[in-house]
């Protein structure tokens, strides 16, 4: 494994790894039998040993994903301490108490596009072909810009190795869920190629049989992926990645008729997204390396709802997003104590689809970032980075970050960082031109409100303008200042303790506000920087190896995510609740659990029992979350009553894997798994919790 990793590293980063090795002579010390730890790239945009990264970083290897039977990214992330899945237009991820909008998701360092209501659906993404998933918590906008406010999740693909290999993985389980993944790869020292084909489908399921229509729809999802590498010369490495994913979804629902009956409707959704990513790495001198990359991506969806009896159209919607980026990065190793990176680039985005048809908006971002790492001694690593983003439609941003790693001994590391994160206004917040024909109100994005309001006024649809758009300040990105501090300690062999405390102070969150009233009585809304929140908490994890074959990991997170305006109002004594008996009462701060969807306490447990000589692994995982608010009943817009919470719940998953080695088939594996052993469901509250599911998988490696 170690030598393989080093090899990979060399391929992956051209010359960066040797530079790094010179930088850290310790890792070449052959007297140490301790394997060279895993290498990560997300936290600093350069390869670095995980243990030497100064910001909280978690890594999930392909091996672990295999042993735990994960096929989609959501399953991988939900078992990580401190991360929680959240259903809102797809399965999104909460990092440090933030909504899914605030975590950047990358494929080999480039952003995956396509969000619905801010959520990038993690079930879109197969884990086939990945070498590892890196999770960086806390803001990384100083390197990645927008969206890297809560954290960054980077899917790192396997680099095509030397030699030839093929693999086939199949799996079938409850609800007709099937996953098929085939890979082919071939390569020599100079070139390598790897192609992947994945088909993932489900028959959907229905947790609420008394309601017409399934809880989750049936779908079929295809992913094709190709990765190439070519060493054009000793100093030049070319890499190329391409991916195409297509999904079809079918569902049904009913709307009530005036006579009280139900009218069945069919719903079809389709999605196509692709990306291409060529990258060239050029060693300029022993101390200097340049990387140039191009990235293009497109994401298209269509929704079609038709009435079943006559096929008439009930609703249709389409969305089309295009993203293009050109970027260069220069890495310089000045000496064993100084490492710098400097980069810059340009992003072009374009939107189409029904809700943006009038404007066909286009946006440009130019950015520049720099990073310097100073290692005065083995005891200390000091990192500084900053990025400047200039966008065509919102105010320019500077995002700095500083970090510190202290190593009093090989067994103890302290980490601290302070940084700023930001999230660009979402497309709808900038460009939406939308009138709800049924309800009569209109919503305009910040760049469209002047024109939209002028038009409505000319048409005589406005009775009163409350706020004059010509006086509006330019909308700003939502931004944060965050602190992270923690440690990793190995007090005994086989015992690792980690903890990280975080505090994120977020301001300029964007919300709607009425700007005018229409003659039909409805309002015209636009978007403004209004809200402030904070999240704070502690993530801890303990790993022990009581037996050589058994590894136990326990994790716990305490979280508080609160709206600062609500906290202020509670302290002013102006927030009240209404009890079930209709009486009102004044809330105190302890009555306020915080934002919807956040559990103050979450925990994970993981036990892995491996018998390498028998090629057998058993894995059991549990995740638990305390209750969280999901609705408001008593009109104060915050969860405070018991009937406004989803009860606490825990889910256990089990997997057994047995492999055999043969002369031709290098490895044949059989896997049996049970997800949600205790059959926990919250039918109408958590649609993504299907109850107990069983699966069996078979995979071959040639």
């Amino acid at each position, binding site marked *: 494994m170690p030598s393989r990793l080093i090899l990979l590293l060399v391929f992956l980063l051209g010359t960066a790894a040797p530079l790094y090795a010179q930088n850290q002579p310790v890792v070449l010390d052959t007297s140490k039998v301790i394997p060279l730890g895993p290498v990560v790239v997300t936290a600093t945009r350069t390869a670095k040993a995980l243990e030497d990264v100064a910001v909280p970083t978690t890594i999930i290897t392909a091996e672990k994903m295999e042993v735990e039977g994960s096929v989609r990214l959501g399953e991988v992330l939900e078992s990580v301490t401190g991360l929680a899945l959240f259903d809102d237009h797809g399965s999104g991820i909460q990092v440090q108490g933030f909504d899914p909008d605030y975590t950047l998701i990358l494929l080999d360092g480039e952003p995956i596009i396509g969000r619905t209501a801010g959520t990038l659906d993690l079930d879109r993404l197969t884990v086939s072909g990945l070498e590892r998933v890196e999770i960086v918590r806390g803001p990384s906008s100083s390197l990645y810009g927008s969206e890297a406010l809560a954290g960054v999740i980077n899917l790192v693909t396997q680099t095509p190795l030397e030699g030839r290999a093929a693999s086939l993985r199949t799996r079938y389980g409850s609800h007709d869920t099937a996953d098929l993944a085939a890979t082919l790869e071939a390569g020599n020292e100079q070139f390598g190629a790897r192609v992947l084909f994945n088909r993932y489908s489900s028959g959907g399921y229905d947790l609420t049989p008394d309601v017409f229509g399934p809880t989750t729809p049936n779908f079929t999802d295809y992913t094709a992926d190709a990765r190439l590498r070519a060493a054009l010369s000793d100093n030049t490495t070319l890499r190329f990645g391409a991916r195409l994913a297509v999904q079809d979804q079918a569902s049904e629902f009913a709307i009530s008729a005036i006579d009280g009956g139900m009218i069945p409707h069919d719903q079809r959704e389709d999605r196509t997204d692709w990306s291409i990513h060529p990258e060239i790495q050029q060693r300029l001198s022993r101390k200097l390396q340049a990387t140039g990359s191009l990235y293009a991506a497109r994401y298209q969806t269509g929704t079609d709802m038709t009435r079943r009896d006559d096929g008439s159209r009930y609703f249709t919607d389409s969305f089309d997003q295009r993203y293009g980026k050109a970027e260069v990065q220069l890495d310089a190793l000045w000496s064993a104590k100084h490492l710098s990176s400097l980069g810059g680039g340009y992003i072009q985005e374009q939107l189409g689809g029904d809700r943006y048809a009038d404007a066909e908006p286009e946006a440009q971002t130019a950015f520049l970032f720099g990073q310097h790492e100073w290692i005065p001694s083995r005891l200390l690593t000091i990192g500084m980075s900053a990025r400047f983003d200039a966008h065509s439609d919102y105010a320019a941003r500077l995002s700095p970050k500083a970090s510190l790693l202290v190593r009093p001994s090989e067994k103890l590391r302290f980490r601290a960082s302070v940084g700023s994160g930001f999230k660009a206004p979402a497309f709808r917040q900038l460009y939406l031109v939308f009138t709800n024909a049924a309800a009569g109100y209109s919503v305009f994005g910040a760049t469209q409100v002047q024109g939209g309001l002028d038009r409505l006024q000319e048409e005589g649809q406005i009775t*009163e303008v409350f706020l004059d758009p010509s006086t509006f300040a330019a909308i700003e990105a939502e931004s944060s200042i965050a602190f992270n501090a923690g440690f990793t300690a190995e007090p005994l062999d086989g015992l690792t303790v980690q903890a990280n405390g975080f505090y994120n102070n977020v301001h300029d969150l964007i919300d709607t506000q009425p700007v005018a009233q229409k*003659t039909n009585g409805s309002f015209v809304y636009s978007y403004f920087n209004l809200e402030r929140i904070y999240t704070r908490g502690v993530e801890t994890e303990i790993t022990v190896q009581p037996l050589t074959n058994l590894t136990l990991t326990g994790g716990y997170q305490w979280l508080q995510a609160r709206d600062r305006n609500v906290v202020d109002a509670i302290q002013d004594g102006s927030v*009240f609740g209404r009890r079930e008996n209709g009486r009102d009462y004044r809330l105190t701060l302890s009555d306020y659990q915080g934002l919807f969807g956040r559990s103050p306490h979450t925990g994970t447990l993981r036990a892995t029992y491996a018998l390498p000589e028998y090629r057998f692994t058993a894995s059991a995982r549990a995740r638990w979350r305390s209750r969280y608010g999901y609705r408001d009943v008593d009109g104060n817009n915050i969860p405070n009553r018991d009937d406004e919470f989803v009860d606490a719940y825990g889910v256990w998953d089990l997997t057994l894997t047995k492999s055999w080695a043969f002369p031709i088939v290098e490895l044949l594996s059989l896997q049996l798994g049970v997800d949600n052993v205790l059959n926990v469901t919250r039918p109408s509250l958590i649609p993504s919790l299907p109850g107990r599911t069983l699966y069996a998988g078979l995979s071959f490696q040639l």
Partner: protein
Amino acid sequence: MKTPFRLLLLLFAGVLVMGCDSDGSGDDGPLELASINDIIADPALGRDPNTGAPIQTSRYSLVSLRTGEVVLSYDNDNRADSASTEWDLGFQGTNIIVNGGTSGPGQGAALLMEALFDEVEEAPADGELRVDGTATCDGGPALAICPGSGNGWYNYNPANNVISPIPGRTLVVRTADGRYAKVRLLSYYQGNPSPDAITPETPSRYYTLEYVFQDDGSRDLTTVE
């Protein structure tokens, strides 16, 4: 069915108080809580398919706090009575007006206070009360009780389209004839259902409220629950 009796009692008490006004005694104890159920406030009959505007009469149902009765209903198109001082509050959709300023000929004014009903023991000074037409609202028309979700008496929940009275809001009203009252809004839905039971089919624009009416002209609004 108890309410009219209570009101009669209240009126009777009022007459008694007026009858023996000479010593100005205020020791007649806390005020009696009254309620008005299902004030029908111009329910929408549908939506205009072209503009999305609700099909409605846009007329107010006018209510007297003294009698607890609807003086003029939204479905009566003879609006002559609206120019009287017989009513104190008007309801249409989510809008509430007072009988004063630009809305009526009376002395009506109001202030929506961020306080529990029982905590409001005295009506604020007249200078603090707001009058339709001269009061200012952040981003809205000039009304004593500001319209719009979160601005006035209600919050609109876009997740389920439910309008809920904001808890802990007490509406102090100066009536058309210069008396004081305090009002707590309980529901916007027919039959004052439990918030849990409200569905998209539940008829809306039906106000249920509880209140006390101080007939002696003082600002004293002391109640016990």
